[in-house]
């Protein structure tokens, strides 16, 4: 067993490096990802190790990055694109939704699209407009894409490698607020499937489901709830599309209560989708309606208001209390 204590940024870096060592067709492309190592340093050192045709500092054009990645994938490469910030993915939205997501279907299976698009996302970093958003629902809504988000360093290390191995396009959301906390990464483990929901804390009275940056917040809420006498189970979704429902359903059948939490606006969101499905599939187990905790349905506010906008442990606990009160 080989365990290292790494930040998620470093774990992703090591995962990318391992994928590049394993397969010479894997290449990285994006803005400032070469000698600088990306604005979050996730690709640090890789340009020096693998050179300019494996780590491409591209022109500053997101549609160009994704559009040429599609062409490279047609040629047999496995491009991993970095979009610098969540709010800058939209120039590439057309290539992602009208081309990348549909090309395998348009080719009736003769073409695969092994393209990964890494997107640092979410708030808690005090940044200016367009730098703290959570656009995952747009992509989860698009047939043909897979959408995932790791919540910790160990998952980051393994999930990026699994995403790169996927023959389908994967939108890989990296929680910026979790880039720097360190965690144990077992690099000798055998990994796990890309779309495997995980129970991260067991409990009996309320199930909390979240992904990416929200998982740490759910665990914090569960800790407080336990001190107050409520036993809470926490589930890390890991995969936003498809959703691995079985562990969620098993948990809700046990607890009878579900709270879904996310940083993204709540309207027509991942949380809404889970609420609808769990209501349909666990109707007779539910002791309370499924409750959603989400960002407000406003644009992401100026940074000094982000702590008001973003759900925290108190907002999660308020929902736990409401669920328990039914």
């Amino acid at each position, binding site marked *: 067993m080989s365990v290292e204590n790494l930040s998620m940024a470093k774990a992703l870096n090591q995962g990318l490096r391992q994928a590049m060592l394993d397969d010479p067709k894997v290449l990285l492309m994006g803005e400032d990802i070469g000698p600088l190592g990306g604005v979050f340093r996730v690709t640090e050192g890789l340009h020096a190790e693998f050179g300019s045709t494996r780590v491409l500092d591209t022109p500053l054009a997101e549609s160009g990055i994704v*559009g040429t990645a599609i062409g*490279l994938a047609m040629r047999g490469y496995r491009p991993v694109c970095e979009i610098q910030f969540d709010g800058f993915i939209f120039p590439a939205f057309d*290539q992602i939704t009208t081309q990348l997501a549909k090309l395998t279907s348009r080719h009736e299976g003769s073409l695969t699209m092994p393209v990964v698009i890494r997107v640092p996302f979410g708030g808690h970093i005090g940044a200016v407009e367009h730098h703290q958003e959570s656009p995952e629902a747009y992509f989860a809504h698009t047939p043909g894409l897979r959408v995932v988000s790791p919540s910790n360093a160990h998952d980051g290390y393994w999930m990026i490698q699994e995403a790169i191995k996927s023959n389908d396009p994967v939108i890989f959301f990296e929680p910026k607020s979790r880039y720097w906390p360190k965690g144990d990464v077992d690099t000798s483990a055998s990994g796990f499937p890309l779309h495997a929901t995980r129970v991260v804390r067991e409990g009996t009275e309320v199930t909390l489901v979240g992904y990416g940056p929200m998982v740490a917040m759910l665990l914090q809420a569960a800790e407080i709830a336990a001190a107050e006498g409520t036993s809470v189970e926490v589930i890390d979704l890991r995969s936003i599309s498809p959703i691995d429902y079985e562990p969620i359903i098993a948990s809700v059948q046990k607890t009878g209560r579900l709270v879904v939490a996310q940083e993204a606006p709540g309207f027509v969101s991942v949380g809404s989708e889970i609420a609808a499905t769990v209501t349909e599939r666990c109707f007779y187990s539910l002791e309370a309606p499924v409750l959603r905790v989400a960002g407000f349905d406003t644009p992401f506010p100026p940074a000094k208001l982000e702590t008001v906008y973003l759900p925290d442990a108190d907002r999660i606990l308020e929902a736990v209390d409401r669920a328990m009160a039914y």
Partner: protein
Amino acid sequence: MSYTAATVQLLSTEGTLVTSDATAEYLPYIEKLTDDQLRDFHRQMVVIRKFDIDAANLQRQGQLAMWIPSLGQEAAQVGSGYAAKPQDHIFPSYREHVIARIRGVDLMRIIEMLRGLSHGGWDPKEHNNFHLYTLVLGSQTLHATGYAMGVLFDGATGTGNPDTDEAVIVYFGDGATSQGDANEALVFAASYQTPQVFFLQNNHWAISVPVTRQSRTPLYLRPGGFGIPGVQIDGNDVLASYAVTSANLDAARSGGGPRFIEALTYRMGAHTTSDDPTKYRDIEELEFWTKADPITRMEKFLRARGEGDAFFAEIEVEANDLAADIRHRTLALGVPDAEKMFNHVYSEPHPLMDAEQAWLENYEQSFEGGAA
């Protein structure tokens, strides 16, 4: 916009070869062509025009949801299509029916697409590297550029062997030159010096909007700002299209970086069968381009070289036979199975696809007598 002083023309509208300083570098490509190749150029133009007119008729008779005519653009397409070598990759827009045919795609695949039976579906690897049509304007320019980057990274170009060195050609139109993607493709192509030819068919109309609204400058001058050489040709001249595309593909495959060709041509028909050009075009323009017809001048050229009536009668029969065959096969087409919707959304198993397909099967079987 019509022809300018810069327009390269090898075959005049009278069907004679144009010899000048401007054509000197291209004429050797024509001199190397055999009589059979020249006949094929003409044959392909005549056959596709008949097919094109008949496909539009099939739409009018309710057999196709839509048709996308290529009428008038035959020379630009046939010449450049034959200029591509077998190892080259071709990224079409959505009007390059004759290039599809030249590269071995059964025209029924295009008919099926416009009848609502597929979104394309052919495998480029099994059709001489002719990629699928792309309906979002300009998207394919980036795919072609990325593909050409891969060719470069593979070292499959620029070795000095013209029989194996690969190049990429991408088709787009005057409307698409306004799209961000087409401009980003030029940026990336210049940055990475891709082995690639951008082939712009300026047919003067983006549905109802004239090219003068897309650009105040001749479009062949645009690539200069990106550091890419551009040339303007008479797109209704099949010989110019062949020779200039050959020269530029050769330059690209030998390490010369990306190239740009603006082929001046004209969309003689509608944008699609949903369009009505009588609402926005004037008759003088149509008359000008009718006189510049690509097929008429090639016939004059071939007759002056001694080609007799028998050949022209033979290709007319071939064109009629093809159109009849297409009509016959179109009327015999069925409807795809519903499973086609689910089969290739993902290339690896996906729980939602499995669940929804199973639900649909159960739903259909719930009716008396099972699925309709």
